[in-house]
């Protein structure tokens, strides 16, 4: 994937999309292990139903990790100064997430870029809204 160049980047530039395969129960189990977040609502359907949910759903942080992957696919991680997200809607098991990004701001003086990021499901609904700030100084 081509890397963002501060010299040629423009506000409004779109990043290439990151299309994820459908979320599986196995992936949620792996994320439980990798992250240490063992909240049963993400892997135990019985528990999720008792909590009023139709099924298990993905850790919000799994989708934030997808966003992080999009960012580091276009720039070295050492340039990333911050990553922030709002969790807007639940990502259910079997949902298909696409991460999108665009250059929202270019600060030529400070040599920083602000990226606007989103996770969108197969129905076109935004599940996460995020922002990353990159430094090129």
């Amino acid at each position, binding site marked *: 994937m081509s890397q963002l160049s501060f010299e040629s980047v423009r506000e409004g530039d779109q990043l290439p999309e990151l299309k994820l395969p459908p979320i599986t129960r196995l992936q949620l189990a792996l994320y439980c292990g990798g992250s240490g977040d063992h909240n049963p609502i993400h892997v135990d359907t019985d528990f999720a139903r008792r909590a009023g949910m139709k099924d298990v759903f993905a850790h919000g942080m799994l989708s934030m990790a997808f966003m992080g*992957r999009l960012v580091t696919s276009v720039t070295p991680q050492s340039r990333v100064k*911050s990553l922030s997200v709002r969790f807007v809607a639940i990502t259910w098991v079997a949902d298909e997430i696409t991460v999108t990004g665009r250059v929202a701001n270019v600060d030529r003086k400070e040599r920083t870029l602000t990226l606007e990021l989103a996770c969108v499901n197969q129905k076109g609904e935004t599940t996460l809204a995020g922002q990353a700030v990159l430094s090129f100084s």
Partner: protein
Amino acid sequence: MIDTRHIGHKFTPFESIVEAGRVRLFCQAIGETAAIHFDARAARTAGYPNILAPLTFPAAIAMDNPSPRCVIDLLGIDIAWILHSEERYDYLGPICVGDRITTGIEIINIYAKKNGALQFVVTALEMHNALGQPVCKVRRSFAVRRPSGLAA
């Protein structure tokens, strides 16, 4: 309602070591395949001292807490009713395999919306490496769908 007197509460900081196997499993779970997260030589070639933890790995470090549910336990919240609302990372230095990270947690806000039907808890985490250098500041907010003390 959640007792707002806990605003300002600081938990005893805890230490954890960033392990290669944990980073590998985390990457497997999120579908990350870049060599700098698996191979020390690739990471060093890219200018990092060792295998680099991915951007959201501080979430895993936060779960190394010997009492990972310390916040909701203190506030008397049932884990079944929480939803993650916001998360922010400010990166101050790389986090690599072998690093010994000390994490401090503080409750910085508790507030209600929709006449108390939804309550929010905001925490701040500060992570330092073994040299005492700050590596990451985390701010997280979660919503409580049915705060304890309210009728079901």
